[in-house]
């Protein structure tokens, strides 16, 4: 029987020999194979969620912007209506214009002739000679100098007491109505985004659960070589983040494209050129500005974050519940 003597020079790592070696590892070869973690259906669901979330977020953004433009435009202008007296044909218009021009904070006073007033209501009522015989209130549009606006309330009381039949409309009703509507849209939009985020998270947790189950042997070997939970979770997380970023970009990109094409689509759909123009005048062209594209980027980042955090949470929760 021979007894083995400890080797005098053992070329194991306990002795460092500096020389360049061929590489036998693919750089960062995934410890968990990507195909076993995420499938096409998960990518599809995330892409669809990204698309819907983009539409919702950008929709809210566009409406919010349009509403801001309206309210600003509306606040910069007040209207004086002069009810025609039934008994007299006397006309206070010139005096009222004179009075208004004398006030502080007024930029411009534009009285509308009856001709012009009729033109304003034409899109709704149509053109008819009959209308001319109706007593249509006279209108004076007053442009306010927004840098030093007058006290509208005082102006209203003074004007209305001085000229009976004159009505000052500061469009406050409209402004409030628009604000209420946009607030409602915002809340609805945020609620929908929240639901989409929840659905995405649930899908990812389910996918993480099955990914862990189908990679049980890998997880167990990683445990055996002393991997921290964090490390194991990260092996899965990276795949989910990759899918999240790709699917998110795809979904948001599709939504962006849709918004980009919106003017052509509305033109194609609407029956008359005027109604398309009308829509554009009301809500803008519907295309996204820089802020809108930033919203799309935020959606992609949010989708990736949801993928990262929920997959990490899902994997770690399961690992925690497994004892070995």
């Amino acid at each position, binding site marked *: 029987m021979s007894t083995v003597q*400890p080797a005098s020079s053992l*070329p194991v*790592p306990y002795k460092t020999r500096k020389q360049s070696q061929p590489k036998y590892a693919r750089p960062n070869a995934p410890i968990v194979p990507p195909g076993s973690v995420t499938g096409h259906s998960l990518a599809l669901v995330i892409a669809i969620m990204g698309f819907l979330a983009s539409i919702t977020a950008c929709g809210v953004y566009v409406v919010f912007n349009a509403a801001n433009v309206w309210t600003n435009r509306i606040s910069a202008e007040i209207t004086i209506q002069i009810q025609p007296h039934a008994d007299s044909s006397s006309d206070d218009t010139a005096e009222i214009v004179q009075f208004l021009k004398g006030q502080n904070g007024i930029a411009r006073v534009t009285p509308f002739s009856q001709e012009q007033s009729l033109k304003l209501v034409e899109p709704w009522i149509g053109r008819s000679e009959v209308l001319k015989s109706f007593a249509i209130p006279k209108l004076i549009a007053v442009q306010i100098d927004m840098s030093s606006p007058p006290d509208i309330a005082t102006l209203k009381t003074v004007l209305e007491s001085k000229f009976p039949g004159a009505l000052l409309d500061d469009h406050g009703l409209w402004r409030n109505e628009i604000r209420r509507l946009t607030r409602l849209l915002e809340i609805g939009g945020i609620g929908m985004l929240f639901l989409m985020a929840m659905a995405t998270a649930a899908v990812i947790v389910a996918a993480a659960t099955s990914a862990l189950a189908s990679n049980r*042997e890998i997880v*167990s070997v990683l445990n055996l070589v*002393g991997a*921290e939970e964090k490390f194991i979770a990260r092996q899965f997380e990276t795949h989910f983040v990759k899918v999240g970023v790709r699917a998110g970009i795809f979904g948001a990109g599709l939504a962006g494209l849709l918004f980009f094409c919106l003017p052509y689509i509305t033109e194609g759909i609407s029956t008359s050129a005027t109604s398309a123009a009308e829509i554009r005048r009301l809500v803008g062209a519907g295309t996204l500005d820089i802020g809108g594209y930033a919203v799309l980027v935020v959606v992609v980042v949010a989708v990736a974050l949801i993928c990262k955090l929920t997959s990490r949470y899902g994997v770690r929760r399961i690992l925690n519940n497994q004892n070995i």
Partner: protein
Amino acid sequence: MNTGHALIRFENVGLRYGAGQEVLRDVNFHLHPGSFHFLTGASGAGKTTLLRMLFMSLRPTRGLVYLFGRNIAKNTTSQRADLRRRIGIVFQDFRLLDHLTTWENVALPLRVMGRKQSDYQDDVTELLRWVGLGDRMHAFPAVLSGGEKQRAAIARAVIAKPELLLADEPTGNVDPQMARRLLRLFIELNRLGTSIIIATHDYQLMSQFPAARMQLENGRLEMHE
């Protein structure tokens, strides 16, 4: 008996699988750092079971196990991972990952520790050459022979220079010449401070190195120093 700085300490340990009989009972022993032991016993005596308890992948059904001075029953998962990184283990069934190359399998413990590949790639390659897998580094486990897998599993267990090496029948699939070579690797590791427990029933292997023996019989452990 001073067991104050024992590396491993078992106190009245018993283990049963499910509702079966106790496979191990009243196991009491302690090992000092730097020791070298053969764990012997017939097939089915409980060698693998004892090693699994040492590796914290099996909880004793009664009694206490201390590793590195710590009661392992009180470990959190993170502490257990921590301890496992100080232990190398060679499984009877190797447990290599099929989709990683031999090289990547061996490098796995270092990767798990967060070490950079450029820092350890020479070590991994050198160790693989030493265990005779120099030309199998890029092969996947599916195409390795039993002996080659065994050597890859041993390389993975020792690559991180563990404080304790547990090997379950590490020479079961290799020829006597390679068995001697692997034994030399274990001896060299031990010389550098690693405590070694080799479960084996290969008497030819044991005769080649005068190490203490732990004998399992009828569920009880006897120490032959």
